[in-house]
């Protein structure tokens, strides 16, 4: 999604909303026991610019230039907050999604939810600890550790845990590795598994993200499907409570330092705007 399109979109949509508003003065009735659709769209950006894999060159708060070659993360355990304060919890077995920047079809998460008025969403960036220890038969779809290529893998085989967010790229400020590449690799995970008795917990990088739709109300109806546009800002992975230098930390995986990265990315998401698609 390009930024300059967003303006047109908004103009177009507001026109559209006015038109539809004129047509139906009265809110259409809905049946709370009937279902409808709600879409969450994840649009990854770098500050004010669109994220362009491999091509875009950006600068972080440490003053380093960087490009991103890969970005993927899990979105799971989705809950939707209604305007009346109640919550709809997406059934756990169908609440795991993998957003992959290089696969546009993964940017939109399609949920089937009860019809109603929704005011916000929360989700886990990553995979909850319970699922991380379940039998292999309960890890289907994007969680299936036997269905991942090495390049896109989101599972640490030696440490039995999921990678929550995986971002790779290059920066001219990073010292070259033996093959001459100036690469950074951020594979962040850690579900806080317990070891020993009494259990000593390992690092827990599970982050729950809660977003309000602000003044927007996502009205899920028979013939109305709201699409909530969420921005994920890659810059915030480096710029946050810790300013992270790529030159100093070209590789961050399962280590105490990863906690700083996770604390930063916990703030990378922002609700931006809504489109309403007529129909389902």
């Amino acid at each position, binding site marked *: 999604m390009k930024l300059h399109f967003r303006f047109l979109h908004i103009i177009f949509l507001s026109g559209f909303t006015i038109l539809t508003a004129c047509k139906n003065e009265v809110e259409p009735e809905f049946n709370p026991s009937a279902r409808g659709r709600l879409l969450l769209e994840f649009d990854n950006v770098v500050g004010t610019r669109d994220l362009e894999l491999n091509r875009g060159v950006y600068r972080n708060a440490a003053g380093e230039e960087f490009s991103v070659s890969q970005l993927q993360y899990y979105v799971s355990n989705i809950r939707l907050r209604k305007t009346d304060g109640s919550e709809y919890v997406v059934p756990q077995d169908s609440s795991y999604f993998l957003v992959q920047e290089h696969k546009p079809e993964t940017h939109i998460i399609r949920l089937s939810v009860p019809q109603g008025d929704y005011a916000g969403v929360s989700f886990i960036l990553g995979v909850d600890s319970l699922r991380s*220890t379940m*039998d*292999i*038969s309960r890890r289907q779809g994007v969680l*299936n*550790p*036997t*269905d*991942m*290529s*090495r390049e896109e*893998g989101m*599972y640490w*085989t*030696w*440490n*039995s845990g999921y990678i929550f967010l995986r971002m790779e790229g290059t920066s001219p400020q990073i010292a070259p590795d033996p093959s001459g590449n100036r690469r950074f690799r951020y594979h962040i995970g850690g579900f806080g*598994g317990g*070891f020993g008795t009494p259990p*000593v917990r*390992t*690092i827990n990088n599970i982050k729950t993200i809660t977003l309000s739709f602000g003044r927007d109300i996502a009205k899920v109806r028979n013939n109305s499907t709201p699409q909530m546009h969420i921005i994920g800002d890659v810059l915030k992975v480096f710029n946050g409570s810790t300013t992270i230098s790529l030159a100093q930390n070209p590789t961050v995986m*399962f*280590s*105490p330092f990863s906690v700083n990265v996770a604390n930063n990315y916990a703030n990378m998401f922002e609700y931006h705007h809504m489109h309403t698609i007529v129909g389902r």
Partner: protein
Amino acid sequence: MKRTAFFALACVLLAAAVVVSCGQRDVNPMIEVSTPPHFPPMIYDLNKNPVTQAGFELGRALFYEGQLSRDGTVSCGFCHQQSAGFTHHGHDLSHGVDDRLGKRNALPIQNLAFYRDFMWDGGIHDLDLQPLAPIENPVEMDESMPNILEKLRKHPHYPRMFERAFGTPEITGERLLKALSQFMVTMISANSRYDQYLRGETQLTADELRGLQLFKQKGCDHCHSGGLFTDQTYRNNGLSLAFNQDVGRYEITLNEQDKYKFRVPSLRNVEVTRPYMHDGRFRNLEMVLDHYSEGMEDIPTLDPLFKRTDGKRGIPMTAEEKRLIIAFLKTLTDETFLHDKRFSEPE
């Protein structure tokens, strides 16, 4: 009289033949996996993966299948050899495809149904998920599961074997892993001369009995305890860090106090699993015992059991005591297990 007997015999044989042929076609009998009397309770949940004859046979074929590696040369059995108690015979660090060296000494495949965690550092908590580690490790099999599944789907025999084991010929990662587990949980070693002695079936020699006594007196059984000869805890036994800074358990827990700790290894079949320790630094049991008596380094995480009141470290032992302890350790060799045809490479 003779003729009726002959007729009856023929009938019985015919019936048996029918039963056998039916058995081959439709019936997939269960294999019972039971806990030997002096073992801790089983941890692997057989209900989620009941062991059947066909599942076991599939697991066995997969265990010895080179196609699980990138270049077709390295099977699980390549590093886990039966004659060496299912370890990598004579290798301190196992090597995989292109002879690339790993960083640790292969562990034996035995009695795994009774373990909570796997590997020297205990990083894997479910036996079903263990095979993914060697398969994807660039210095071991260097392959990916999606590739392996594609290779097996095109194979002349595997679709039929998966069908026998799981009802349909579909080849999935879950099925592959569960078949490997069915094979591995069946591999129980509990028939060493020591086991036979516990069951009152045989006698140990006077030396071996003295060795057993010393094994307890010297406190070896604090850590190498119970029927498995391990309490499955993670400890540091004072191996010098001069050549190898593998931090072990710390990689999993990121807890400073776990630096340089490794899972206490079982001592079953220890006679044939040399070399010893997580990096295979000791060629023989004599060197191991010399380490316990004289070779221990003062590492901050050294187990308190090795700290002596006189400020020295280790377990004092005379040469004779070491000889006797080794004589006892050799009673843990299970010839039945090491030669069990069910676990060897299929013809």
